[in-house]
């Protein structure tokens, strides 16, 4: 009987987790929850301090010290909102980088298989991290997720740099082909 109850509890938990992850993944996509105006437009890069500020516990400690329930709730709501905007923006940026990369790849004859696999693996990992982050922010708020957010930020910077390197190599190759 106890075993059966454990199985049922496990299944329910698994279902809840899957639903949360799916919701988060959908929310991180532009056609999921629907981004606010300008979220897709990443014309100005995200400053590095943003992540440490949004996911900072120092602000939370300050708010908690005020001993005002209303302000604590407002803080949680507002930080959740900002964190979700940041996750959507990061997902949008990475999708943009990958689609630009795919366009460049189609025109390039000297592809390096290992580099391509590396970029694709990082893209997949980043999208998974964004999905998990989005779900976790909605469930628990951003205050416990600083580490994961830093991972997402580092990964997105690495993928952008890889893309820049790839573009530079592509341009050099194209220039050499033209001059030959």
């Amino acid at each position, binding site marked *: 009987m106890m075993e059966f109850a454990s199985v049922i509890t496990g299944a329910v938990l698994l279902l809840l987790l899957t639903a949360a992850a799916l919701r988060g993944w959908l929310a991180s996509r532009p056609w999921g929850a629907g981004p606010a105006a300008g979220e897709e437009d990443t*014309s100005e890069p995200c*400053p590095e*301090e943003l992540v440490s500020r*949004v996911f900072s516990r120092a*602000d939370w400690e300050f708010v908690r010290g*005020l001993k005002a329930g209303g*302000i604590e709730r407002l803080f949680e709501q*507002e930080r959740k909102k*900002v964190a979700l905007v940041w996750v959507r*923006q990061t997902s949008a940026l990475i999708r943009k980088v990958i689609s630009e990369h795919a366009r460049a790849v189609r025109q390039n004859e000297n592809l390096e298989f290992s580099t391509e696999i590396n970029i694709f693996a990082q893209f997949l990992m980043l999208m998974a991290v964004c999905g998990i982050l989005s779900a976790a922010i909605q469930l628990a708020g951003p205050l416990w997720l600083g580490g994961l957010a830093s991972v997402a930020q580092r990964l997105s910077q690495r993928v952008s740099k890889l893309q820049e390197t790839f573009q530079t190599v592509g341009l050099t190759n194209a220039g050499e082909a033209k001059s030959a």
Partner: protein
Amino acid sequence: MVNNSEGSAGQAAYTNVPDRAVTVEEAYDDLLRRSLSQISGDLARLIYLASTRDYNTGKYRHDGLAARFRLDIACKALELAHRQIFYRIATYPLERLVGEVELYVSASQQGREEILQVWQKLEPYRVALPVNVNVALAQLFVSNIKLALAIVQRRPKPRAMGASAS
């Protein structure tokens, strides 16, 4: 709007513009030295800089600066200063931002309660966002100002200098 007259009198002020090549950095330093240093608090500086921007064209205008430099150089210097101060204030710890709001409210001519209510209802600080600013950073700024206003409103009104002396 501050010194934003578009009429012929405003244009005439630019006839004394120096012939030598002036840089945005020079105009920026001049702006910091003459105007921004006279304003206490980064939030008040941000609001001032945003108020030099025309709502319709998005161009910044400051007659004094344009008279000493050039209209386009003054515009760029104002934009640079606006952007820099915004980036600084948007990533302030919440506690520091609360201090900025407190300073802004207490330095204003209007009553503290009036300003707090109007800022919470009309959210005029949204106009202080520079153009094309990162969306997440803009959201953080707006959220933090909302929180800071709620915190300041909850705090007891600071005593006036004269009252504390008596």
